């Protein structure tokens, strides 16, 4: 099978997944076009990160598949799968830096493991990528010596170190102060402009979503319920999307408990 549209870099088709006896993804269909930034929004725990981890091959779907440049990720050979996924970079929610290694070793981890690069080349890559994320001269520090925001930027430097075609961001701005969050947003836009990458970001930070997205998809109850440009999403008539983007406690999205304004249960 080939992808539906020729400019479709990644296509999620009919993805179902049950994790720990919880039916998380209930048939997700989602095309991602080459060079765009797609932001997936949704409540905490709605399966956004699980979807992202399927795209980068960390989870295997129960049914359905991910087509990358038309190739079904979970049907190709193990070698081919590795080759496809080598062109992906991922920024994890907590940066997930290897704390026993220095910042520099983290950035060129893939290069060190492949043993195909000289020390000089790797030093050049480290300097270049750390410069891109605005952290020159930090190569010899340990991750623990950096602040949360700096760690995320190192995580981004590591994700782009091997010049990926696709970058995935898992909650890139969560846990950062608004200024640092905006710097990360700028970095994501910068990466897109400089590297011409396809990006997928998962977030519930609407400020960030409007700023970085070409298109926004909302995941609710294990399915994509709406996709559109930031403008379309802002003016949507879908009550679920409306409630989410306005951050309203009352609406069709059920929460565990709803309280009235004076604190009594509604």
């Amino acid at each position, binding site marked *: 099978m080939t992808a539906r549209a020729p400019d479709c870099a990644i296509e999620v088709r009919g993805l179902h997944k049950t994790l720990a006896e919880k039916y998380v993804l209930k048939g997700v269909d989602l095309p991602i076009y080459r060079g765009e930034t797609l932001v997936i929004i949704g409540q905490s725990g709605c399966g956004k990160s699980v979807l992202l981890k399927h795209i*980068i091959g960390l989870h295997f779907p129960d049914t359905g598949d991910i087509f990358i440049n038309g190739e079904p990720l979970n049907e190709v050979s193990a070698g081919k799968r590795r080759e496809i996924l080598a062109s992906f970079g991922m920024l994890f929610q907590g940066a997930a830096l290897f704390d026993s290694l220095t910042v520099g070793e983290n950035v060129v981890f893939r290069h060190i493991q492949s043993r195909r690069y000289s020390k000089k080349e790797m030093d050049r890559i480290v300097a270049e990528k750390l410069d891109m994320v605005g952290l020159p001269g930090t190569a010899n520090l340990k991750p623990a010596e950096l602040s949360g925001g700096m760690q995320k930027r190192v995580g981004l430097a590591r994700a782009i170190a091997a010049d990926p075609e696709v970058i995935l961001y898992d909650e890139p701005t969560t846990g950062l102060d608004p200024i640092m969050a905006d710097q990360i947003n700028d970095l994501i836009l910068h990466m897109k402009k400089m590297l011409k990458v396809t990006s997928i970001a998962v977030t519930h930070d609407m400020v960030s979503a409007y700023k970085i997205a070409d298109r926004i998809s909302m995941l609710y109850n294990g399915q994509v319920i709406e996709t559109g440009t930031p403008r379309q999403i802002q003016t949507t008539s879908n009550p679920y999307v409306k409630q989410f983007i306005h951050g309203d406690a009352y609406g069709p999205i059920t929460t565990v408990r709803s309280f009235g304004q004076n604190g009594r249960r509604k």
Partner: protein
Amino acid sequence: MIRAVGSVTISFFSQIGEISILLAETARNIFRRPFPKRNFFEQIVKIGWSSLPVTFFTAVSTGAILALQTGYAMMSMVKGTEHYVGGIVALSVVRELGPVLCAIMIAGRAGSGITAEIGTMKVTEQIDALITLSSNPVHYLIVPRVLAGIVVLPILTLFTDVVAILGGMAVAFFELGMNEMQYIDTTIDMVSMTDINVGVVKSVVFGVLITLIASFQGFRTQGGAEGVGKSTTRSVVLICMSILFFDYILSSVMTTGI
């Protein structure tokens, strides 16, 4: 009740199955290039070198207590047999106590460390990050640990044997008033090369058990700091139980083999 027993049994056997799969996976990855040299030497230091003080202390006290108890017992029971203390201490240490006590100390010291480290990597998504950076976590994390265990445990066990025998000798000399030459003579008389080999074979198996189970529990960790604590505890308990279990199996197999 039946359901509870059933679910515990199922989880027990499925864990054994998973550990066996991990063992096979580790064996398959041992010869893959590039060999994670740096991690291997780091683990040798962590498991071996840093465990020397605790094994030394365990060995001295084990040897000393053993010599004291057997010495007094023999003196009071059959006069004139106490010069066998050296041989008895040496034999029990070399065949049983050396490998087992050393392995249990390493399980507490290094096994818990391995589980906590890999468990923390798991809950902070570092294992996922490894995979997205085209690395195999078994090759990068488990292979160096298991190999370090295989190399280090026999060395530490032989060290334990020697120190325990010397500890026993000190007690025999100072407390029981024995001649140290008698002690050494009976030691050399009673301990054969086979006994030493039995101890070394056991220690190799224990080395694999400690590092493999510790890594396995680390990989299974879920749910933050609490999860890391839980799997560390579970890891040490499981390692100690399996050491005692395999000690019995190996003892019975190798003793009948002699």
